[in-house]
């Protein structure tokens, strides 16, 4: 008589059931494995204690073992610990680690030298981080003490200072000041730029010394398309000059191509140019919501499918994300007037102003607490 076998998930594999389906998170590889009906039915019988009977679920179990999501045992009572690197809820009140954030976003201006057709001064979110002309709810320009902000950020364990616009290079002096401060406090600066304004020697030197990075936001690989969409001449030529100049100085450059219906076949993007120069490329998309004339109709279905935008998780972030919204809890953003936000895209919820609030005070703000509790 053959021994009865049971399947149990590995400690780093978590079965999660939601209202629209179920999946297994592999916290080692970061994979999220969506389960079809056959698997979901089988997992209705799965329990931490009993596992799954091999006899009753032969096909499903074989596939799960094949995918290395669990193991077979003849002892159904074996207990499998979670590979959970977060603090247990029981100890959270006692061992509450300090509030920390990794990134601070500084929008040094909301002005831009380009006039992209799809970019307006509203606050609607149509894509992820990058340049955008945001409207401002505040009047007048506040003087901002960047030294104080960066010193506070350092104390909160910030690693990267991400400088945004509009176009940040329109504010050369501010930018220079911030880069000097990054150097002083040993933080890594990252600048988003459209690449049409050359970096000064001082900026380049500061970027080199602080191991900084420039992210060039790109649309096209030719001046003609740029003229049509930005109203400016020689944008592509200027971008190339800027990129070459930065690369010559050994400064890390990344390209971010914004995809809309104007370039969604990728034929008129600079992807090959960047590949030839060994420049890493990421893509961002103009989203279909709110309704607009620029998102890619061809990609609409993919853009609306949240599965295409899932981020990978591991044994620390999976448990952390269950408690805290992973994005908001890892950053703060400050606009050109000093208003503080949980995210550079979330302009409707001001959490305070750097002239009246310490960054640390934001963590006790009710809006902030609500935002970070928007956990999945």
């Amino acid at each position: 008589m053959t021994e009865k076998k049971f399947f149990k998930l590995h400690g780093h594999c978590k079965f999660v059931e939601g209202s629209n389906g179920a999946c297994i998170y592999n916290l080692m590889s970061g994979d999220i494995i969506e389960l079809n009906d056959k698997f979901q039915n089988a997992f209705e019988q799965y329990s931490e204690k009993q596992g799954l009977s091999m006899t009753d679920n032969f096909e499903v179990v074989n596939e799960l073992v094949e995918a290395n999501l669990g193991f077979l045992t003849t002892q159904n009572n074996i207990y499998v610990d979670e590979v959970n690197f977060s603090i247990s809820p029981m100890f959270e009140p006692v061992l509450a680690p300090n509030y920390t954030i990794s990134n601070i976003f500084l929008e040094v201006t909301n002005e831009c030298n380009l006039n992209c057709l799809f970019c307006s001064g509203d606050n609607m979110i149509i894509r992820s981080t990058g340049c955008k002309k945001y409207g401002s709810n505040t009047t007048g320009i506040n003087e901002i003490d960047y030294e104080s902000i960066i010193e506070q950020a350092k104390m909160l364990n910030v690693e990267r200072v991400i400088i945004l616009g509009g176009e940040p290079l329109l504010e050369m002096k501010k930018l220079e000041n911030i880069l000097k401060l990054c150097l002083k406090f040993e933080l890594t600066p990252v600048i988003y730029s459209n690449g049409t304004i050359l970096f000064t020697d001082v900026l380049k030197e500061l970027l080199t010394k602080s191991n900084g990075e420039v992210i060039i936001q790109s649309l096209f690989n030719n001046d003609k398309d740029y003229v049509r969409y930005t109203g400016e001449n020689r944008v592509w030529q200027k971008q190339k000059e800027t990129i070459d100049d930065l690369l010559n100085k050994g400064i890390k450059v990344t390209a971010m191509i914004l995809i809309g219906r104007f370039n969604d076949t990728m034929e008129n993007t600079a992807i090959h140019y960047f590949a030839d120069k060994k420049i890493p490329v990421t893509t961002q998309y103009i989203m279909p919501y709110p309704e607009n004339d620029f998102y890619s109709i061809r990609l609409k279905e993919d853009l609306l499918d949240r599965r295409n935008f899932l981020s990978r998780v591991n044994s620390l972030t999976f448990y952390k994300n269950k408690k805290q919204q992973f994005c908001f809890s890892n950053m703060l953003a400050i606009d050109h007037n000093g208003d503080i936000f949980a995210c550079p895209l979330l302009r409707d919820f001001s959490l305070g102003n750097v002239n009246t609030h310490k960054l640390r005070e934001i963590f006790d703000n009710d809006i902030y607490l609500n935002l970070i509790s928007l956990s999945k």
Partner: protein
Amino acid sequence: MDNYFVFETINNNKYIFDNNTGFVMPFTDIDEYIICNFEQLDRTTMYLNLKEIFNISEKEFNNRYSIIENYRTMGIWINKREPKYITKDQYFKKLMDYPASQLILIVTNECNMRCKYCIYSEMYPNTITYSSKKMDFQVAKRAIEYYMELHKKKVLQGYRKAPLITFYGGEPLLEYKLIKKIVQYIKNNYENEVEYYITTNGLLMNEEVSEFFLKNKFRVTLSLDGDKLNHDRNRVTKDLKGTHKIIMKNLTKYFEMHNAMNKEMQPMLSFNCCFDDYSSANAIIDFFNNNSLLRDKEFYVFFSQINPYGDTKYYDYCDECAKQGIIKSNKNTWRMEMQQIHDEFLEKIKLGKKVSMPEKSLFASYYFFRNRGISQMPNTCNSCIPGSKIAVNAEGDFFICERMVERFPIGNINSGLDWSFIKPLFEQFFEIVESNCSDCKVSKMCQLCFMHLSFGKEDKLEFNKRFCETTKNQLKELISNMYSILEINPDAFKEENLYDREKIF
């Protein structure tokens, strides 16, 4: 050196405990081979050997190997420790990041009781004794100013919790007027919400004091050794009279006052219950479970074995009392009764039955272990670091802990935390850990702290062999017991609210 150990449950299942991170995994002979030979053999050789020994398929080997390889990248099964040294800058950074902060004001060394096991008593000939030293308000004020400044710095670095000020003695309520003055001073001078905590013997906890505690949301730990017999055996007044009756009377008033003031909120009360070999565990548990005053109340009990370490005559005194018939129980009473209570407790947990809070308190180590963090152990082990707590004596000297007062200073109200005092303490601590704990397979779970090393005669930290041996044995047994239970009830000990430690510490 291997930094893990293999244990078996009652069902003969094998598990491996990783001492670097605290992670436990079911364990097969194949896993054992891969883990043990990971650094010695290349992958192909390992596979060929395993194929020969266990007839393992390549797919199965690759699956197991990749898991072990990945777990190792997370620090599991590798002997990786933080360096055993700390610079001044690293210390102050660590202090800022440390998730606790507390100022302990030893407001007096005087006590209105003469507990037999008190560290100030003649049972501990080599430690300090009772004295009339009292804290002056100015000393308290300077200590508070220093502490609040330190707390402010911590907050700017992301610290989450409110300042916590603890009153300790001797018997702190002998200085009730000073305590009131301090609380008022804080109210007048600081905007922060400050939390207060007091450990008291309860003799002076009259209506006025109870009202003051409740109004100011004091967390109170009351020393009460359970039933009258066990309590009155040791906890006596200066004229050797038992104190159980008066404390229960004061406790009644406290609860009445609480009911009158705020019925909605549970009182923030816990008990400190000391026991020795002769104590009846049954009687103590029965008291906390069934006493009419305590029934239906939420409270935690800190069960503390009367300190057997260091140079104490207390246990000889107990033996003598037993010989003379003053103590009626025998030397095995606690051990034997505990064995039975322990078995019954595990049986209830196994079956998912309800257990009382005092029982949970008594076996808190199961809950601590079950809810342990999986992470690399810091070089200071599980100990507080000097300065995370600051205990201040009447002269304004700073000490690591309220249980280490008058020895091992770490600064004072004038100079603040003083690295020149703290550095040698760290060095001694690291040296002891390096020499004695490097090959320990359960050090991740050990509660060793500076206090455990402070019982030597010299003014130097000293390895505590007895603590070490007892802890090692207890932890290994506890781990095996716990996984035997988890195999039957995977939800066992998974309490999110064993008690609100926030309210206690």
